[in-house]
């Protein structure tokens, strides 16, 4: 009985005890559960529709490929690669660019944000710079960056660095700003020096904001790397999509888009897990 009930609840059939007794549920969002049953149905119906749509040749495969075609391309590309690079090399090329650009963005952005949060001089000095560059989409820099540092890895990493930098500056500044004065005062009263306060109070205290910034920056970087590879690259998932589209190979394009989606999702999940692990106190202070 208990097992069955738990199971029913898990797959979304059961409702909790309170919801069952409610007389009005419209507008009561606590009564709206996941509805996983419907999710299964939705995925199932859409898959069938995709399969049938292409099996009955209702759509031109140039516009939307058959599931089998996408799958075939996946097996083919993961074995033989695409345009001189294996699938994993393409994925790795994109990930590598992100990680380096993102890491540089953090490396410069976080200390700068800290300085801006802690010192009036730094805040005043860099505020106009940050405010000016922040609203510029990193992709608008593509032409400039190509002139500055060519079309190699360096310029893609520079773009990603730009994409991450401002987000991290602002996140770190917000992190510093979120430190409760009473924590600082407590630390001073416990005999801490300025340096100790920076390392043992301000830094750990701003980790939640910094991590939120990192998650946003990762998302933006992922979007930017795909777009940056649309322009001049010889590897990367974005390049793969773009190159395939030039030959109207819609199956590869769709495969690429699915890969982009899955990796983006995986990165986000990973960051959340990492956050839960590293900053367990987040939201519970």
């Amino acid at each position: 009985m208990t097992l069955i009930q738990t199971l029913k609840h898990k797959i979304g059939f059961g409702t909790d005890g309170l919801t069952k007794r409610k007389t009005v549920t419209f507008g009561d969002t606590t009564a709206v559960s996941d509805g996983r049953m419907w999710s299964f149905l939705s995925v199932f119906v859409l898959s069938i529709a995709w399969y049938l749509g292409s099996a009955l040749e209702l759509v031109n495969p140039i516009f939307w490929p058959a599931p089998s075609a996408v799958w075939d391309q996946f097996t083919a590309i993961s074995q033989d690669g695409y345009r001189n690079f294996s699938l994993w090399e393409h994925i790795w090329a994109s990930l590598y660019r992100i990680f380096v650009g993102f890491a540089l963005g953090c490396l410069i952005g976080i200390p700068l944000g800290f300085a801006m949060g802690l010192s009036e001089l730094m805040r005043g000095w860099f505020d106009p710079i940050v405010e000016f560059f922040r609203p510029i989409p990193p992709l608008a820099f593509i032409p400039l960056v190509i002139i500055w540092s060519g079309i190699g890895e360096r310029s893609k990493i520079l773009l990603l660095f730009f994409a991450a930098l401002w987000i991290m500056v602002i996140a770190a500044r917000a992190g510093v700003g979120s430190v409760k004065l009473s924590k600082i005062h407590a630390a001073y009263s416990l005999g801490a020096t300025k340096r100790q306060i920076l390392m043992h109070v301000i830094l750990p205290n701003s980790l939640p904001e910094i991590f939120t910034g990192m998650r946003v920056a990762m998302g933006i970087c992922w979007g930017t790397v795909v777009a940056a590879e649309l322009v001049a690259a010889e590897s990367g998932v974005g390049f793969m999509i773009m190159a395939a589209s030039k030959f109207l190979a819609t199956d590869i394009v769709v495969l690429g888009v699915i890969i982009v989606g899955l990796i983006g999702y995986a990165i986000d999940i990973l960051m959340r897990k990492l956050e839960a692990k590293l900053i367990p106190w987040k939201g519970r202070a």
Partner: protein
Amino acid sequence: MSDLVVNDVSMVFDTPNGEQVQALHDVSFSLKQGELLSILGPSGCGKSTLLNIIAGFLAPTKGTVALASTELHGPGSDRGMVFQQGALFEWLTVAENISFGPQMKGMPKEKIDETVDHLLQTVGLQDFGDKPIYELSGGMQQRVALARCLANDPDVILMDEPLGALDALTREKMQSLVLKLWKETGKTIILITHSVEEALFLGEKLFVMAPRPGRIKKQYSLPFADAGLTQNPRDIKASPEFISTREEVLSMIWEMEEEIMGLATGTGG
């Protein structure tokens, strides 16, 4: 007359892991029109559950609730509610909040304006009709909540810790306002509170509830609410009679709470 009769009400919740929680067990009582009942009890003893059943938001697993001899199923404008705070509509002005009920029912505009004016007067906010809600202090907001509830002219008013978020001074003033409204309108009122002082001072009747299963542990009939209409509240609260009742109820509740905490964790505090 619109008497409220709660008859043998029980509420059992199924928890996700298949267990059952007896939130209320065979609760029965009746209130005559115009009675003021306050309910006290430790956290989790089913106070809000009881109020929600009377309001019609929850269906009890057993028993019935009837108002003026009609059994109740679901919410209705015959029972008004006042919550702890945050239940006003911030996007409306004070007057618009008060007129929400009549508006929804399509009452003619003139009549609405008249009602609103009168109610603003009643709760002492005559100059604040056009103010947005968020510019008011917590106490003023609760005045608006009272007026909004009265605009529909309900038979019963249900209040779940309406003064819980106010500071001591404001709270004292609001208690007097509740007494005044009770007297003037003759509504039946049920008021949940965590403050023993407030429960004693406002309740004509007082139920002290106990948890596991949720039930009425003790009932009191109290003289302080009537006295409060004429005498100085500070004097009443300092009277030996008030203090001794307070000590009695206080020890009863703390005993229950210590028991609950003892069950929950090893160390209290």
